[in-house]
């Protein structure tokens, strides 16, 4: 009984934190599902999103939650342009070329952030940063709840968009079978540009919530990329529901790993799980 009540806190925090991981992983999952490109710059783009929110907070005094509204179109356009002028050309050269260009992009974004905002650790501090409330014997920080709510909202919106709108259906079609989609009159390059734009907008949301939850510095990106990969691999590449469950599993194994094996167990346990899943079931727990 003692163990169970002690475990309540890591379980609740793990599930809520899993929500944040879902938001981080969704953009990566979408790009891979549609374009079959591993966007290794994703982690750095998320951190860039955190820095943009930080800039808005420090210069304009804008609450990071309000910053979501202008940042969505801004990052969408940025992603649209990156796809149109960089990745689209790379994909024609070779499959590896897109990956290597994404690496170059990661270097550029990471070091541009470092030059602009210095390597110092930053965080998005607002009036609700320290707010916690108590449920039973568990203290829950408000930002973790916000992360989870954001994950649910983003999931539902993206899912509705992919199923209900023409553009969303075109994206789904192109990701399932590019040639047939082309025959049906869908312009794949346009679809890719929109998909990458959406992935970037998702990265900006992820960046804002990551910045609200944790402190960040310019080289936090690669670690986030590996976490996002972990979430996708656990859930299955290209599967939306899988990504959601993958995020929960990752968050839970992180907090429970930390509870049983100390601070280094936090990431060691989920990473070993990722390797195990890749070995036994490379398509992920919920992939087909």
């Amino acid at each position, binding site marked *: 009984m003692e163990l169970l009540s002690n475990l309540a806190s890591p379980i609740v925090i793990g599930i809520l934190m899993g929500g944040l991981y879902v938001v981080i992983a969704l953009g990566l999952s979408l790009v891979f599902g549609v374009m079959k490109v591993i966007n290794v710059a994703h982690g750095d783009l998320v951190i860039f999103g955190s820095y943009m929110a930080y800039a808005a907070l420090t210069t304009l005094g804008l609450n990071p939650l309000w910053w979501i509204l202008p940042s969505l179109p801004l990052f969408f356009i940025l992603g649209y342009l990156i796809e149109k002028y960089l990745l689209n050309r790379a994909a024609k*050269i070779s499959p590896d070329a897109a*990956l290597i260009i994404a690496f170059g992009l990661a270097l*550029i974004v*990471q070091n541009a952030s470092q030059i602009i905002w210095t390597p110092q650790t930053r965080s998005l501090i607002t009036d609700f940063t320290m707010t916690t409330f108590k449920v039973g014997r568990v203290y829950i920080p408000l930002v973790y709840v916000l992360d989870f709510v954001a994950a649910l909202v983003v999931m539902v919106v993206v899912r509705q968009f992919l199923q209900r709108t023409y553009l969303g259906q075109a994206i789904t079609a192109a990701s399932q079978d590019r040639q047939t989609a082309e025959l049906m009159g869908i312009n794949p390059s346009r679809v890719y540009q929109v998909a990458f734009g959406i992935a970037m907008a998702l990265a900006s949301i992820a960046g804002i919530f990551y910045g609200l939850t944790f402190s960040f510095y310019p080289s936090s990106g690669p670690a986030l990329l590996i976490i996002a990969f972990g979430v996708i691999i656990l859930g299955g590449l290209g599967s939306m529901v899988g990504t959601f469950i993958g995020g929960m599993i990752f968050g839970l194994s992180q907090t429970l790993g930390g509870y049983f094996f*100390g601070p280094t167990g936090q*990431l060691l346990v989920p*990473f070993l799980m990722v390797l195990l899943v*890749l*070995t036994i079931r490379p398509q992920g727990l919920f992939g087909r």
Partner: protein
Amino acid sequence: MKAIMRKYSLLGTLIVITVLAALLPVIGAPKTWLLYLFYFYVFLAAANMWNLLAGFSGLLALCPAAFIGLGGYTMTILTWWGIQYYIGIIVGGVVAALFAMLISMSVFRMKGVYFAIGTLVLPAILKLVFLRWKPVGGDFEGGGAGYMVKGVRAIPPEVTYWLALGIGLASMVLILIILRSKFGLGLAAIRDNDISAASSGINVFGLKLSSFIIAALVMGVVGGIFYMNNGYIEPNNAFDINWLMIVLLATVIGGKGLEWGPLFGTVIVVALRFQLARYAGISLLIQGLILVVIMLVAPQGIVGLIRDLRKKFMNQQNKKLPSSS
């Protein structure tokens, strides 16, 4: 006669350059030169091995840091047990190769993207393991605090330099030999089409595994030599994604899948690293820009670009000849 000349001119040039490079510390070359060259040899060896994996074997292995870090750690821990550094460096290579063998049971079941992701996770796992595990030393050493390499002061700087030169040269010779052997022919066949290679009786799995283990061995030795010169090792540096960046930049800028590619690429990476050392962020920013531009303009890298330009030039010459006569 001409063919023999051509065959031995390459070997001759290589020997002359090596002898000259080896004499540099003896004739009192500036210390900064020697440092640049040290980095050049070490990065060249790592980049050559990555080229063997990604360029020739079709294995987009994103885990050079795992092999380099393991090699470095093995060498360091052995010096704590009173074992000489040169033995430690070799054992480091062997440990990295054994690790490659062990991990291949898992990652070689994955294909394409999954292989890339699986290998990307490896250095992250090793970093966490070494942050926690303290094989030697007291409470104040090991883990996040890292280890000093014991007895590093007693090693003369020339020896470090020659070791680096040795591994750089060995990696280059190894690549040249592999590409001219049956092994290299097999790899080329796999790279072009692995299904038809398999149906022609090539052991696809075996060849890929061999190049994975060879690359791990050399990278392990590279790690030992690098951290011996560094005098200090800690997990965040040893298993950092920077190692991947270095080998990837050097290989891609020079020309991925071309035998001389990493040589040219490493010159540029080392030059940028030191010329812009005072502005760390800008140096990497520029390297990122070069990477993107090279990939879009000349996907075969500098060596590929030179080859294409030469071909074009030769064609023009050939066209001119009949009209002028």
